[in-house]
């Protein structure tokens, strides 16, 4: 059963991997890091990617597959009874492409209240985006399900 470090090391073994981290998107805290950061400082990268992940996790437009459209939306301030939440954010992953690389942010679903995602930074020439995306999904699952 892998912990955070094993999970990040496995992510780093993907072709073209330059840096990996596990980040809390509410606070911007890096729970674990491996490899390099694009700005030379993992904590800065964690805080910045957390803002991106938070926007994706919180904006209504990404919140559901259209089931929230129409009049089914509870008005703010009058939440659904009990305030029950689905365990994880509705977004599965985010892919951001730069001139020289890819960033994949994969949300991790836990059975307790949390807000974490895996961030993988890939070299654009050496990385295989499709493969990395699938592997990251598996890693996110293995991290919490063993």
């Amino acid at each position, binding site marked *: 059963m892998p912990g955070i470090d094993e999970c990040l090391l496995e992510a780093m073994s993907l072709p073209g991997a330059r840096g990996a981290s596990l980040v809390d998107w509410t606070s911007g805290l890096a729970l674990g890091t491996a490899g390099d950061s694009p700005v030379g400082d993992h904590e800065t990268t964690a805080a910045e990617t957390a803002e991106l992940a938070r926007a994706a996790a919180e904006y209504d437009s990404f919140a559901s597959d259209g089931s929230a459209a129409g009049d089914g939306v509870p008005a703010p301030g009058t939440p659904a009874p009990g305030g029950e939440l689905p365990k994880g954010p509705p977004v599965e992953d985010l892919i951001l492409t730069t001139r020289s690389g890819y960033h994949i942010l994969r949300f991790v679903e836990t059975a307790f209240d949390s807000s974490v995602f895996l961030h993988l930074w890939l070299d654009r020439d050496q990385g295989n985006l499709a493969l990395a995306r699938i592997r990251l999904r598996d890693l996110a699952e293995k*991290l919490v399900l063993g």
Partner: protein
Amino acid sequence: MTVSPMLNRLAAERATGALLRDHGTLYLVDGRVVHAESPASPGLDVLLTTGGRLPREGWDEAVDRAGARREVGRFLVDSGRLHDGELEICHLGAVFDAAFFALAPASGPTRFRYGVGHWFGTVRPVSTEAVERETVRRRELLDSVWPYSAVDTAPVLPRPAAPGQTVTPRRRALLAAADGSRTPADIARRLGRPAFHTLLDVRRLAAAGLVETPLEPLPAAPPAVPTWVGEVAADPDVALLRRLRDALEASL
């Protein structure tokens, strides 16, 4: 950026023990932070049992069986109740959460008890610098969102949303738990969420006008003149007026 000079010294000497402050306790092993607790933040038991990840009995049994040898965390994993990754994510979250409050500026004394350990045991030690840096970063983050710390400790009072204004599901749950008397710390415990995360959401809600921001108490005005001035004012005479003038001059 020194949060606690004593903490730096203890890290340098690779100390093991408990650092006791006004708002919480940090546990060190070989100068690294292995655990933290604060009355302001929910413990791991609350985080793991509230959402139903662990039944309360499962937690209690782990504490009964492994608490004495300080290996509760290890036991939770070895007995199949939790996975390594889950334990690390939850524990690290709880440590940084409690440390934020434990390292809050406080007037009380800071004490260190050498050799004292925590029954939860070691999961993933963090350097004291990382904990201090994160604590300072979190303070700045709160103030950058809404620089009114009065909302952190006051009962959360929701305000009606403006037409078209939306609230995220996580904040909706927070507002639903706000009954007019619960503070952010109470709500965090009730929802099984880290207290800092709840503070941050409360500040965001306050910034959006969806939660009341209590007025900061005004500083009491210092008395301008000695109190006996009022008592003699009904019957003034020259001697008194002179004393009054002298007193005023002395206090200006």
